[in-house]
């Protein structure tokens, strides 16, 4: 909270109106803030400041939300304390980021609903808080990957488990977290233990018997919860005991079911048999807070698509294997499938067939869905290359996809310092290929700077990891004859001889990967851009001499939905004509949204095997982007956050800038000794290699 006012005097309506006008200036509606200001007048000063602060924050995202927050604030503050008010605004902004303005406004207007949920708030568990841990838990349980996602009600479509954004049905937060875990585990068990049928059981037709499908599904979900808990208990007794403790005793209506289905070998067919009895009566199924619902349509649709896809993968993989389909005349023969001990093995004429891992996983997944392999996937597909899946093929041709759909390569979170929270998936990152520039540019620069380059090379040659032989060591692989002779002399003369009589070889192994992040914003146009390109030429010469792994990426962009990264040289590329062409093609583009670029390049750097990782930014100014929001504090704080994240990943960062005002903000971003400010762009080429030498030794 930034209530920096010395006075505690209440603000009057006209003062409030003026402040609101400033904050909501960006709005297109040009409504008068008079009415809102009147409403705020009766609040305490400290409350007024809080409202103004959050109106400002909200208006940065969307002015209409700012209006709404200001309008509803007096009512909200009657019901909510300071933290509650903040949470209410943040929930609205979160909804705006994820779902858009309409949802955000609806959520904020539903003040009653929010307060009701908030009353349980100390006890409520939020999906976002436990998502990572829960996702790993489910992955640990599962044989097959299962995604987690927030949804309106708990259910699974057999590839994703949907859980509500918040759970507050139990009195403690810990209890609600356990409830999440129990629900997720039971939904996982639905996909694992045949709730959606197998090759022998067709759920769709089994459920079609009942006209009241809703009621049948609810009964089915309850019966499955009974069955799956026992099935789980056979392998995971701890988990089953936790679920049992959470749910308490079974409701009376389910007691007979517990007796009949409470066997570790109970299958979905038993649940269906019992379902008929339940539907014959007129009892309503009990509500089980820990058991998810069953969305049979979604599950069967996803399941059918997966089965078709995986059967094809297995069929193609088998076809390409030796002796099956590939061999003339052997096409009619199907391989034998052996399922002993839960392991899936294929053999043909007694010879074991090893499937590629993707196909093995697909076969295992089919087994989980159907209980057997569909016969059609064992029939050869005829000659043809092995293709993993259609989707992967599509991903191969990503260039077209980029231009036609503009679906970003990656989305990155961005730190909003005012909310003290991340905006999820906020920045859309595109990797954009640079069209090769002037092929002769690098040669021309090299020629012009021959003397300098020669000097750089010589200096860097000295740094190259080479062995040194250290004499007079207490131990080592060889005897140091000089030291030995001296010691013998000492001994003969009665002096104490040295014990350091050996040579040891010291190996200097450089294990460093450097990433250069080059500012391609519009402000670099002209001298700065030339200087950047020239310094890259020098750097490449130096680094080629040194043999360090290095990569160069340019960055620029225009708002959060178009953050572009331009690969100039990837780690696995050589410094060849193509790279030289791309260095020449570096040009001034748009804006400088730095955080997302740092996050992306950190990821690339992290994948490098080197022991030390260095991220060097060449820039001409502070983080900046189109629109007021990123400019200034927001951009600095996000960049700082991104650099902290990089630091946590073991990436050290350094900034070389020619922004004379850099000293104002660079210490906050990089730390006091992690940047260099050059006063003249023309010095950049001379300095960059030198700075690198300092950093990397």
């Amino acid at each position, binding site marked *: 909270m930034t209530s920096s006012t010395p006075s505690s005097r209440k603000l009057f309506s006209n003062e409030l109106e003026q402040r609101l006008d400033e904050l909501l200036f960006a709005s297109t509606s040009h409504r008068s803030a008079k009415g809102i200001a009147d409403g705020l007048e009766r609040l305490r000063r400290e409350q007024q400041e809080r409202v103004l602060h959050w109106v400002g924050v909200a208006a940065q995202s969307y002015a209409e939300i700012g209006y709404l927050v200001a309008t509803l604030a007096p009512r909200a503050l009657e019901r909510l304390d300071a933290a509650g008010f903040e949470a209410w605004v943040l929930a609205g902004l979160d909804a705006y980021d994820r779902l858009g303005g309409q949802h955000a406004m609806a959520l904020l207007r539903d003040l009653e609903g929010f307060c009701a949920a908030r009353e349980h708030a100390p006890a409520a568990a939020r999906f976002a808080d436990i998502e*990572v*841990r829960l996702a*790993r*838990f489910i*992955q*640990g*349980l*599962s*044989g097959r990957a299962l995604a987690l996602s927030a949804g309106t009600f708990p259910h699974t479509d057999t590839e994703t488990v949907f859980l509500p954004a918040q759970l507050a049905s139990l009195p403690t937060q810990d209890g609600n977290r356990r409830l999440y*875990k129990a629900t997720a*585990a039971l939904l996982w068990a639905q996909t694992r233990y045949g709730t959606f049928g197998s090759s022998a059981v067709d759920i769709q037709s089994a459920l079609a018997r009942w006209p009241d499908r809703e009621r049948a599904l609810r009964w089915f979900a309850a019966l499955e919860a009974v069955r799956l808990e026992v099935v789980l208990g056979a*392998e*995971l*007794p*701890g*988990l089953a005991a*936790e679920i049992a403790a959470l749910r308490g005793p079974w409701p009376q209506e389910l007691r007979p079911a517990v007796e009949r289905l409470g066997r570790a070998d109970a299958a979905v067919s038993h649940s269906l048999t019992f379902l008929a009895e339940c539907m014959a009566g007129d009892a309503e199924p009990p509500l089980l807070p820990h058991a998810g619902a069953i969305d049979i349509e979604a599950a069967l649709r996803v399941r059918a698509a997966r089965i078709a896809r995986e059967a094809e993968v297995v069929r193609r993989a088998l076809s390409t294997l030796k002796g099956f389909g590939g061999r003339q005349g052997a096409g009619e023969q199907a391989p034998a499938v052996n399922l002993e*001990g*839960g*392991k899936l093995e294929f053999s043909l004429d007694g010879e074991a067939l090893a499937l590629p891992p993707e196909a093995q996983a697909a076969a295992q997944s089919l087994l989980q869905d159907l209980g057997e392999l569909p016969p059609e996937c064992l029939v050869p597909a005829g000659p043809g290359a092995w293709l993993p899946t259609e989707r992967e093929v599509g991903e191969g041709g990503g260039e077209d996809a980029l231009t036609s759909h503009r679906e970003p390569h990656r989305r990155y979170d961005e730190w909003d310092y005012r909310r003290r929270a991340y905006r999820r998936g906020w920045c859309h990152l595109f990797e954009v290929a640079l069209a090769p520039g002037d092929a002769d540019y690098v040669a021309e620069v090299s020629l012009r700077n021959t003397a300098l380059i020669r000097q750089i090379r010589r200096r860097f040659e000295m740094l190259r990891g080479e062995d040194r032989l250290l004499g007079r060591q207490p131990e*080592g*692989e*060889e*005897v140091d004859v000089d030291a*030995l002779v001296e010691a*013998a002399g000492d*001994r003969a003369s009665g002096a104490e001889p040295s014990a350091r*009589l050996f040579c040891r*070889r010291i*190996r200097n192994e450089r*294990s460093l990967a450097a990433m250069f992040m080059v500012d391609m914003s519009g402000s670099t146009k002209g001298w700065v851009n030339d200087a950047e390109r020239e310094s890259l030429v020098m750097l490449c010469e130096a680094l080629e001499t040194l043999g360090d792994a290095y990569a160069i990426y340019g960055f620029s962009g225009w708002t959060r939905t178009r953050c572009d990264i331009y690969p100039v040289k990837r780690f696995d590329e050589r410094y060849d004509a193509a790279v030289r062409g791309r260095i020449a093609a570096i040009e001034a583009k748009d804006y400088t949204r730095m955080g997302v670029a740092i996050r992306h390049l950190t990821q690339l750097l992290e994948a490098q*095997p080197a022991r030390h990782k260095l991220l060097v930014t060449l820039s001409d100014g502070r983080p900046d982007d189109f629109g007021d929001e990123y400019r200034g504090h927001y951009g600095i704080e996000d960049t700082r956050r991104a650099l902290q994240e990089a630091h946590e990943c073991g990436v050290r960062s350094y900034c070389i800038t020619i922004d004379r005002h850099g000293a104002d903000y660079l210490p906050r971003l990089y730390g006091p000794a992690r940047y260099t400010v050059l006063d003249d762009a023309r010095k950049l080429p001379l300095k960059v290699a030198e700075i690198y030498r300092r950093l990397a030794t």
Partner: protein
Amino acid sequence: MSADAGPRGIAPQLARIVAEPYYQPIGDEVALFESAHRRRLPVLLKGPTGCGKTRFVEYMAWRLQRPLVTVACHDDLTTADLVGRYLIVGNETVWVDGPLTAAVRAGAICYLDEIVEARKDTTVVIHPLADARRILAVDKRGELVAAPADFMLVVSYNPGYQSVLKEIKPSTRQRFVALDFDYPEAAIEAGIVAAEGGVDAQTARRLVKLAELTRNLKGAGLDEGASTRLLVHAAQLIADGVQPATACTAAVARALTDDPEMTGTLDDLVHAVF
């Protein structure tokens, strides 16, 4: 400067393994190893950490009645550390055989554990030992030591490391008979855990179930799942009276990761099983 203690200088004493080490064969690895020993072929053991490679070599050394020399390789291991060096006694130098030379002379089994950890130029010294020549060149003494028929070279490495720096050179790799090791099937692994850890069959099965759950997380936050070795550790704690969940948390969950969130997940998995 000649060696003081006879022409060979100091040769380390090599001990034989007297008691039979516990080892549960999984496939035909015992027969293969014996065959390789008879035909004087070096052996490469591949497999994740803690799946029984070292135990297997101990067992085979006992079975074949050969002394065993084990060298844990590290990135500062020099050729001299393997072959030997001169030490100074008074005004004289004395040659001391390194573990590899000692093993060759004694016709022992020399086991280089985690060979990829050693620098590539160090491992080249084993090349003439690992092909038909079967000799070790001791440069500093100008000596060529021919390996007796009983000498056997065994190296191991863990192909699970994804680092490109931790790959074995083809020129080294292609001298060996390679045996693949992996965590045994659940039933066998439970047998091993029960036998080694001294716990009942049900506890052993649950421990193996826990290992299976953690192995599902390999590559998703964990570099490796729980090894058989960790399970045995947990079992030993349980046999000593520690609560199963506590034992697993200490011996398995905490041993696998330092990441707080991952630790939380592993705790959840421990409590799911126990």
